[in-house]
């Protein structure tokens, strides 16, 4: 007897790289879930003020742009992730040692020494960076052309915008949190529809790859997330 599940294939399957294959196999459920989420423009932020939200939207869109192969920070809802993180334990530095005295100018190798929790670094960092953008480029970051935004972010990355030592980690956090929001399980608010996983070919919360360890062959199956959604 051949069980029913062995008999047919319901969908045509597009060959090619794992990424392309998995992308094409984005399930109806995952797409539906993605479409059900309110547009980013309508998202009501928990932590970020409207001005800060505009910055995070604009900055993450340059850190992981939408054009080219793969989804960008916008499509994957990275700004939502960052807002959630800053509103929660991460933003408040709940797990960190935050006792005085602070020496924010200490050698960087000794680790971050700012008295500000990540939420505070974002708040003051965005303000200081927008101030720098206004002074140098004549407008807040979110209002600049994309080329000017890229240049401003590069200056931030190169520590050339004159941030005080307490804000030294601003760029590191922004870059790290953007990538986190891109790749983290969708339960945290980003990686909508598991698009970032589909793009690179990471199968998510699947657990067993016993048959695939040692096999030099593209893995064809799309990801699953912790909630059990498939893409």
């Amino acid at each position, binding site marked *: 007897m051949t069980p029913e599940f062995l008999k047919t294939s319901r969908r045509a399957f597009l060959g090619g790289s*794992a*990424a392309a294959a998995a992308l094409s196999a984005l399930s109806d459920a995952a797409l539906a879930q993605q479409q059900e989420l309110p547009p980013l423009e309508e998202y009501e932020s928990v932590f970020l003020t409207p001005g800060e939200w505009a910055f995070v939207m604009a900055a993450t869109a340059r*850190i*992981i*742009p939408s*054009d*080219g*192969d*793969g989804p*960008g920070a916008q499509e994957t809802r990275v700004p939502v992730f960052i807002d959630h993180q800053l509103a929660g334990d*991460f933003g408040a530095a*709940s*797990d*960190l*040692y*935050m*006792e005085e*005295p602070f*020496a924010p100018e*200490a*050698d*960087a*190798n*000794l*680790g*971050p*020494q700012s008295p500000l929790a990540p939420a505070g670094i974002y708040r003051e960092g965005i303000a200081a960076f927008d101030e720098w953008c206004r002074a140098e480029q004549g407008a807040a970051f979110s209002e600049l052309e994309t080329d000017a935004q*890229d240049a401003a*972010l590069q200056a931030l*990355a190169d520590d050339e915008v004159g941030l005080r030592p307490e804000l030294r980690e601003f760029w590191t956090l922004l*870059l790290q949190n953007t*990538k*986190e929001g891109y*790749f*983290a*399980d969708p*339960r*945290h608010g980003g990686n909508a529809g598991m698009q970032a*996983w589909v*793009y*690179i*070919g*990471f*199968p998510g*919360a*699947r*657990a*067993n*790859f*016993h048959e*695939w*360890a*040692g*096999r*030099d*062959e593209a*893995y064809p199956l799309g990801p*699953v997330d*912790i909630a*059990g959604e498939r893409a």
Partner: protein
Amino acid sequence: MARTDPKKDVVIVGLGWTGAIMGIELAQEGLDILALERGPDRATVPDFKYPNVIDELEYGIRFGFMQKPKNSTITVRRTDDEVAQPMRRLGSFLPGDGVGGAGIHWNGQTWRPMENEYRLRSYVEEEFGADAIPEDMTIQDWGVTAEELEPYFDRFEYMAGISGQAGNINGEIIEGGNPFEAPRSRDYPLPPLQQTVDAKMFAEAARAMGYHPFPRPAANASEAWTNEYGMQLGPCNFCGFCERYGCLNYSKSSPQTCILDALKRYPNFSYRVNSEVLRVDMAADGQTATGVTYWDEEAQEEVTQPADLVILAAYQLHNVHLMLLSGIGEPYDPQTGEGVTGKNYSYQMTGGTTLFFKDVEFNPFAGAGSVGMSIDDFAINQIDFGAEGFIGGSYITAGNTNGQPIRGIALPEGTPEWGAGWKQGIGEWYGHSMSIGSHGSCLAYRDCHLDLDPTYTDRHGRPLMRMTFDWKPNDIRMTQFMKGKIEEIAQSMTPDSWQSSFKDEGARYDIRPYQTTHNVGGSIMGTDPNASAVNRYLQAWGQHNVFVLGAGAFPQNIQYNPTGAVGALAYWAARAIREDYLPNPGPLV
């Protein structure tokens, strides 16, 4: 508020690997035992259950299973003249907390040190002359030999169900194993794991160059296993969420999978969680401990817990911290070289080369914590220290532990860190790179030590412990030597491109990026009470009823991951307590 609880025979500080081993060994003696664990209770289900534990952000990035710096941290400086700063966020190393300790979130690489590592100073002096040892290098012998410890390694490896391939059984070299290892009495309990693509490629290249690749010994079960306590492991499924995570599949050896449910059946054993030991209480004459004082989080009060025997089984850093706070052993003074507690803190020298292959599908998500192939052709017992100009050695290895994307996707040199180029890069290169790593020794130096910080305190008002550590030229020369060897192998594999990351001359210790959680020393073992904090049975020299377990006993770091030796030493000390100390309590040496 404070209370005093009824006396126990034994109090164990910390319920990770060593606390669990000592707990069950002493429970078998019928002793009344209390283990105190500062963190929460943890079990495979619900704490590591599938799929919830496969949350890279929560556990891999936000360190859900690790010690919270808010509750416990250290300060760090590189040199004695620098002002130490608190480690406010975890980075370089990740101590665990909670039941199981770091034993839940390790990768499972389970090694035995080389024979000469136990008697490193004697070995160097005999083979290369005392002049080969730099003036500031404070390496010592352990006071115990590979031969003496062999039965205890065997016990640990069979208890933990290690998957591997023996290379030397009672002096007979076994094809496919590590021919340079110390003799072992029998093979590993389980066969090696199946190998990942990168490991197979590395092994093939190494073999072609005349080296001797062998499977990395793994605490990831290749088959179902039942140990001496009746505890069980299921086969590893290569889920790719090993290090930093509790195992969802009962496959990784841990106190949970190997000991705890058996231990909990002993009515004479109990444990309390969320109970952080603040100090070891000492008798008025300082010659014995009377018990411990701990903070009971639930009751919000300090508790005095009297006990006849005190076992320090917390992480290396916390054991040393408790010794410094309690006056166990004379604190080490780097100026005079006198004192013992805090002496010879050491770490691990690692480096690696990343190789990119556009046309190879590595499927990095199909990984296990200890899968991989290694060579020991440049081990510490294979190198002519005189000719090479350094003391030390390293194993060289490749194996795919995980493909978690936030933790990093290797990209060829020149790829931007952000923007369109980065996004293009991750799409092109995820799953198309592998790395060959060097995992090497890190020796002991006069000024690398642990003491109490003069400024910063913890939530209980105790001074934080202060770490003084920096990389030293000897170990950098070692890692540069390994770089040369690894790059030769890498080039022979003709990747599309490759790039290396090894410490260069002048490299300074950086606590931000993760390196290894292989902190050792500070409560070092030895044969001389003036040069070591504990004797060869891990018994405090000055307080015979205090035993200090863990990697703090290593007088300098070995070229291997420490857990194998930590486990063997725990069984070694347990035997000494059961057979020698209990019948006749007093100094064992």
